């Protein structure tokens, strides 16, 4: 098996960054997330490949928080399109975990399937090489295995596994992975190694049957009850590796401007506000219900997989301790009168 020594990581990233934007898990100040290796400053930042994961998900690599679409200029009574911003730079995401990679797989379903391809997404996605780090030691809020994710065999272009002092096992899985391997070939050694054993998950939930059960639960007291502490901030949606709602807005000055899309959140009251002033999801419980039905029922029905990958971020960061695990358990227990 190919091995990348830990003291060669920086050199490997430098080489990858030669021809691509490389996203790596970094701690910057008090924040952890996927940032470009080009932005790495060794006096203030730390590469955190040895941490379980980072607090901000890597979805921005293919789906940026603010994404310029095109700029325009007024020309008499006409509008001229100046530029269309389709990203074609090669990108590498290095050290992504299986849950977050499954998050990107969910985004693929949304933006590339069912008869519609989103050009902006597609351009980024096709130019992306994924190097996933296998997870052998699930954290206390991790439940990816319950959501159908295999933490040690993510569907990445390359899988790396932390072998401790030996370095990282490096396994290319696809052509893209092979190409990346060639780029750092001289930093890799051949060695017989044994991969670690996957440790037991402490957090598990039975998701089977939840989507079907939820069909009967649109009107159920559970939504009022469980949403009571919810403050309807957007933390859960912004930290979620799969949440992908966006708005399209415009910025103008004088006779020019640009149109962009930006993250939006179904937890906001304004999200469903209609031009005439009505709002089909004006109540907290209605927005709360929609978020979980989308994750656990609608998405499952449309794409055959839940829109939750068990990364645990929403459980960790919810200011009022709302847990999707608890919710699934309550749904399982709920009396639907059937």
């Amino acid at each position, binding site marked *: 098996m190919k091995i990348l020594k830990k003291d060669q990581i920086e050199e490997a990233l430098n080489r990858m960054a030669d021809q691509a934007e490389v996203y790596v898990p970094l701690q910057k100040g008090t924040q952890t997330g996927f940032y470009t290796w080009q932005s790495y400053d060794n006096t203030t930042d730390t590469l955190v490949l040895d941490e379980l994961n980072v607090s*901000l998900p890597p979805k921005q690599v293919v789906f940026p928080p603010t994404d310029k679409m095109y700029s325009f200029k007024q020309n008499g009574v006409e509008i001229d399109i100046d530029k269309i911003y389709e990203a074609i730079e090669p990108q590498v995401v290095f050290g992504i975990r299986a849950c977050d990679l499954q998050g990107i797989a969910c985004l693929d379903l949304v933006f590339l399937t069912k008869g519609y391809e989103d050009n902006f997404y597609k351009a980024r996605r096709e130019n992306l090489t994924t190097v996933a780090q296998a997870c052998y030691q699930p954290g206390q809020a991790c439940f990816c295995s319950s959501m159908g994710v295999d933490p040690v065999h993510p569907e990445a272009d390359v899988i790396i596994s932390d072998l401790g002092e030996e370095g990282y096992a490096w396994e290319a899985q696809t052509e893209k992975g092979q190409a990346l391997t060639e780029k750092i070939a001289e930093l890799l050694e051949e060695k017989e190694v044994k991969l670690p054993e996957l440790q037991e998950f402490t957090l598990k939930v039975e998701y089977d049957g939840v989507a079907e059960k939820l069909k009967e639960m649109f009107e159920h007291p559970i939504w009022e009850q469980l949403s009571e502490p919810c403050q309807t901030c957007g933390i859960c949606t912004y930290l979620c590796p799969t949440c992908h709602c966006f708005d399209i807005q415009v910025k103008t000055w004088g006779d020019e401007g640009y149109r962009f899309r930006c993250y939006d959140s179904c937890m906001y009251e304004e999200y469903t506000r209609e031009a005439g002033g009505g709002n089909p999801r004006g109540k907290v419980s209605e927005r709360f219900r929609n978020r979980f039905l989308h994750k656990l029922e609608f998405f499952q029905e449309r794409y055959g997989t839940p829109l939750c990958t068990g990364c645990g971020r929403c459980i960790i960061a919810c200011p009022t301790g709302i847990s999707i695990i608890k919710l699934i358990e309550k749904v399982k227990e709920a009396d639907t009168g059937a």
Partner: protein
Amino acid sequence: MKAIENQIKEIAARLLQSGEVNIFLAWEKGDYEYQSKPYFARSVDDVDKIVFDQYCIHNLSNSLLKFRDSSDKIGLVVKGCDSRGIVRLLQDNQIERSRLYIVGVACPGMKDPLLAMKNHSGLFKVETEPEVAAKCQTCRYPNPVIYDELLGDQQAPRPQEARYAQVDAIEQMTADERYKFFEDTLSKCIRCYACRQACVACNCRLCIFDEMRPQWVGRETSLSDNMMYHLVRASHMAGRCIECGECERVCPVNIPLMLINRKLIKDVDKFFGPYDAGIKYEEGVKPPLSLYQENDPDNFI
């Protein structure tokens, strides 16, 4: 704290039984021993789940906003800072005093369940958890300022030396250094609006950031829109922030929101003070910037 918890349970049971209130806001235990979470008891049967421990850090006065249009009678537990939140709501005409039964608890300082969750998650490298949460470390009013019933032994305010330490440090910077500081700090913002949602003073029915016609503040996560968001939010807090520190505590990207709030607290205190927001409720009395007087000082303009 166990004794206080038992007293809270007794009071809640009494109030719900007699119908004096139909909702009682307190806390219940989450999934971890270091996690307590807001809990809305609606019947005597619910009272058993109520807890009061060192992780009951949330400001429940904020939850009253969910009931501002109802006619519910609400009992709730407040610590010192939370009770100032109630004064905030009363001064802002958000809820009638007669609908509330306030159980005040003299607060020895709380621990932050969010920090504990993060610390145990493996997703964040957090420095060691402090004895009491950051937001409690310069607490001025540990004892409730408004209540119907008071529990616990009176607590002494925490030392105040460090209260403006960071504000002073920022004031000492050159304009360029200061700009750089805020550029670094605010460019992290992901615009999740958790600071606004956790804030009891953010009680506008239609928030300026949600207004679409006209859209006052853009929705890009760019430095200029982020700065606009934080500047507008902060200036709306002037004279109104009751220093519960919930905004900073809930921020998922660790923006030092209380630093910004404290600068305004310091200025309001200097220009209109001595003034501490929300420490006394008198009918008709408003915070300094919610009231215009001809002799207001304006030499800073």
